C-alpha cells in the first residue's frame, strides 16, 4: 500500500506541474525568441568599474585549436591593448573603463556552449559577449544573442548560404569573407591563367559543401571542366586513392576545399606521390603560417588558399602584424592566419568604436551604431551591409605562398603580387 501511495502522490504532483507548465511564462524579462529586444535605457551603476566581455569558448576538446591559435590570441591582445590605454571611454559613466574577461570552456560541445553562454548573460550579467568557435556554434549562439539583445560579433566561422537565416538575428554580425566573394575570385584567376580542368575535394561539412557547391557551377560557367568531385570525412587518414584518381584525370588544378588536417594530409601525400598540378589549392588552413612551419618554404611555394592579406596590404596591417608578432613570437601554439587574423581584429575594433561613439553599454544602441556606420579598423574604412562585413573592406580573397609571403593574388587593386602558374615543382627529397 505504501508503494501505491508514493506513486499516487507522484502522479498528483505530475498533474499539478502539467497545469503549471501550461501556464509557464517566459523567463525574467528576457525578450521572446524571434523578437528584437527593446532598445530601452540601460541601467547605470555608478560603482561599475569594468566592462565585462564574456561567453563560451572551446578551451578544451576538438575545437581548442581555434581558441589557442585563432581568435583566442586576438581578443586577448585587444583586451590588453585597450586596458593598457586605461580602457574604453563610456560617456554615460563619465570615465574610462577597463575590460574584464569572463570566459567559460564549452569543451567543444554545443549544448555546453549554449548553456555557458546563457550563464554568462543571465547570471554573470556580462556587458558584451564573445563569439563561440565554429560555424555551427556561431549559428546556435546567434538566436541566444538576439533573444537577450547582446551584440555578437562573429569570428571563426560563418557561411554565405545561411545569410537569409541570419537576417532574422539582427544582433549577429559577421566579420569574415566567404564563398560568395572568394570562389568567384578564384575562378577569375583560374580562367585568366588558362586553366582548362579542375579536380575538387571537399570536406563533408557546411564549409566544404558550401565552397564546392559554389565552385562547381562557377567553374562550369567559366568553361573549366570539373573532372572529379570527391567528398572526405573530417577524420580521413589516407588520401592516396583520391590523389591517384586526380592524377588519372590529368586535371590542371587540384582544389582541396577542406580544413587544415585534411589539407595538410593531402599536401603531404601529393608530395610523396609527386602529384604536382599547375594549381594546388588548399582551403582553410592553407594561409596559416603553420603550413610553412610544418612543410617549409620550398614545399609551400605556389600553394594557393583563401584569404588574404599580408604586411604589404596596408600600413595598418603591417603595424597590426608587428604588434601581434611581438606579443606571440615565442608562443609555438599561435599561428599567423592570413585570412581571419585581420578580420577578427577589425570586428573587435568596430565594437570598440561603437561603444565609445555611442557612449553607452546599451547593446541595442551599440548594435544600431554598428549596423549603420563606418569604422576605421585594421582593414581601413570598414562597414557592414546586412550585418555582413562589406566586400569592399576585404584585403583580398585568394592568396598564394611566394618566397615565404602569402601574397594577395586577386585580380583587383588590392593584389600584392601576380599569381605564379604553374606552381614550381616539389623540392627534391
Amino acid at each position, binding site marked *: 500500500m505504501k508503494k501505491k501511495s508514493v506513486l499516487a502522490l507522484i502522479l498528483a504532483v505530475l498533474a499539478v*506541474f502539467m497545469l503549471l507548465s501550461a501556464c509557464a511564462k517566459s*523567463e525574467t524579462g528576457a525578450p521572446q525568441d*524571434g523578437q528584437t529586444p527593446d532598445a530601452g535605457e540601460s541601467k547605470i551603476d555608478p560603482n561599475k568599474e569594468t566592462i565585462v566581455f564574456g561567453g563560451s569558448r572551446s*578551451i578544451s576538446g576538438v575545437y581548442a585549436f581555434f581558441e589557442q591559435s585563432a581568435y583566442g590570441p586576438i581578443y586577448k591582445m585587444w583586451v590588453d591593448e585597450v586596458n593598457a590605454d586605461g580602457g574604453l571611454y563610456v560617456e554615460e559613466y563619465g570615465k574610462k573603463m577597463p575590460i574584464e574577461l569572463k570566459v567559460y570552456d*564549452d569543451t567543444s560541445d554545443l*549544448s555546453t556552449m549554449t548553456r555557458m553562454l*546563457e550563464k554568462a548573460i543571465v547570471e554573470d550579467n556580462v556587458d558584451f559577449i564573445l563569439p563561440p568557435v565554429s560555424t555551427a556554434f556561431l549559428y546556435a549562439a546567434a538566436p541566444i544573442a538576439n533573444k537577450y539583445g547582446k551584440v555578437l560579433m562573429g569570428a571563426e566561422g560563418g557561411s554565405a548560404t545561411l545569410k537569409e537565416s541570419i537576417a532574422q538575428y539582427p544582433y549577429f554580425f559577421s566579420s569574415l569573407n566567404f564563398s560568395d566573394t572568394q570562389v568567384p575570385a578564384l575562378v577569375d584567376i583560374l580562367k585568366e591563367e588558362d586553366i582548362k580542368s579542375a579536380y575538387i575535394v571537399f570536406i*563533408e*561539412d557546411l564549409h566544404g*559543401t558550401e565552397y564546392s557547391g559554389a565552385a562547381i557551377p562557377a567553374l562550369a560557367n567559366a568553361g573549366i571542366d570539373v573532372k572529379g568531385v570527391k567528398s572526405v570525412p573530417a577524420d580521413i587518414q589516407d588520401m592516396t586513392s583520391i590523389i591517384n584518381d586526380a592524377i588519372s584525370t590529368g586535371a590542371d588544378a587540384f582544389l582541396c576545399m577542406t580544413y587544415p588536417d585534411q589539407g595538410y594530409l593531402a599536401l603531404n601525400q601529393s608530395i610523396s606521390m609527386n602529384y604536382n598540378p599547375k594549381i594546388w589549392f588548399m582551403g582553410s588552413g592553407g594561409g596559416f603560417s603553420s603550413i610553412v612551419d610544418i612543410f617549409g618554404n620550398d614545399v609551400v611555394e605556389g600553394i594557393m588558399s583563401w584569404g588574404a592579406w599580408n604586411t604589404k596590404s596596408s600600413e595598418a596591417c603591417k603595424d597590426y602584424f608587428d604588434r601581434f608578432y611581438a606579443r606571440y613570437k615565442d608562443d609555438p601554439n599561435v599561428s599567423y592566419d592570413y585570412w581571419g587574423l585581420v578580420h577578427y581584429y577589425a570586428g573587435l575594433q568596430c565594437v570598440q568604436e561603437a561603444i565609445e561613439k555611442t557612449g553607452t553599454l546599451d547593446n541595442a544602441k551599440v548594435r544600431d551604431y554598428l549596423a549603420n556606420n563606418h569604422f576605421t579598423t585594421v582593414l581601413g574604412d570598414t562597414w557592414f551591409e546586412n550585418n555582413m562585413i562589406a566586400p569592399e573592406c576585404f584585403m583580398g580573397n585568394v592568396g598564394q605562398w611566394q618566397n615565404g609571403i602569402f601574397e594577395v593574388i586577386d585580380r583587383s587593386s588590392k593584389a600584392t603580387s601576380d599569381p605564379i602558374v604553374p606552381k614550381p615543382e616539389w623540392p627534391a627529397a
Partner: protein
Amino acid sequence: MKLINEYKANPKKLILPVLVAALLVLLGLSPNFTKPYATIMLGTIMMYIILSLSWNMFSGATGYVSLATAAFFGVGVYVSAFFGSSLSLPLLMLMGGIFSFVIAFLVGAVTLRLRGVYFTIFTLGIVKLLEQLMLYLEITFNKTRGRFVVSYTFTEVFYWLFILMILVILLSVFIKRTRFGLALKCIAEGEDAAMHIGIGSTMVKILAFAISSFAMGAAGAAMATRWTYIDPYIAFSTNLSFLPVLMVIFGGGRHVFGPLIGAVVFAYIQELLITDFPYVYMLAFGVIMIVSIIFMPNGIVGVIENIVGRIKKAKGGRKNADP
C-alpha cells in the same frame, strides 16, 4: 479511506511519500525562486537523468550494453528541426519519442539476436549510420549541413523535461515490479535459462529497447529547441551515448535511483569543473572518474548501501553483545 486509516495507524509510512512529493514540488517550483541559470542547469540535469534512467531501463536490466542513446536522441533532435515550426513542444516530444520507438523497434528486431560486445558495437554503429545518413541527405538535398531549430524559453523546456523525467522515473519503478521487469532480470541472469522457462527473450528485449528509446527521442526533441542550431554531428554526438553509461556507473545501476543520483552528481561536478577550473577540467574529471570506478564499483548508491549495512550490522552486533 483504508489508506488514510493505514497512515493514521502508522504515521511513519507517510515520511517517504511526503519527502518525495516535497522534493518534486521544490524542483517543480524552482523556476519561480531560483536564478534563471539554475533553471537552465536543472533542465540539463533532467536531460541527463532521463537519458541515464532510460539507458538503465534496458541495458541495466538485461546486461546488454547499448551505445545507441545518441542515435535515438538525435532522431528526436531532427524531429524538432523538421517539424518545430508547425508543432508545439509537447507534440514535438511525443513525435520524437514515437519516431525513436519505431526506429528502435526495427533496429532491435534485427540486432537483438546479437549478444555481448557484438551488440554493443552494432549499437554504436547505428549512431554513426544515422549521423552519416543525415549528413548525406542534408548535403544532397538541402545543400548545407545544419539547420536552425525553433526555440522555446528555458522555463517551458524545463517544465516539459520535468514531466518527462517523472514519467521515466515512474516507468522505471513500474517495469521493475512487473512480470515484464522480471523477464528482463531473468535474461540478464541467464538468457538461455530464461528461454527454457518460456520467456520470449527476443520480443521482451526488443520491447524494452524500444520503450527506453522513446524517452531518449522525446528528450532530444526538447533539447534541440534550446540548442537552436543543429547538424548531424551535433545531433548524433557520441558523447550522449557514453555519458549516460558513465552516469549509471557513477550512481550505481542496481537501484532505480542510482542513475538519477549519478546524473545529478556527475552533472554538478562537470559544471563545477567547467566554470571554476576550465583549464584542468578534463584532467580533473578523468581523475574523478578513475577514482570513482576503482573505489565505488557499485556507484554512489552502492557506497550508501554499504554504509547503511555496516551501521545495521554494528547495531545488531551491539544488541547481540548485550547480556
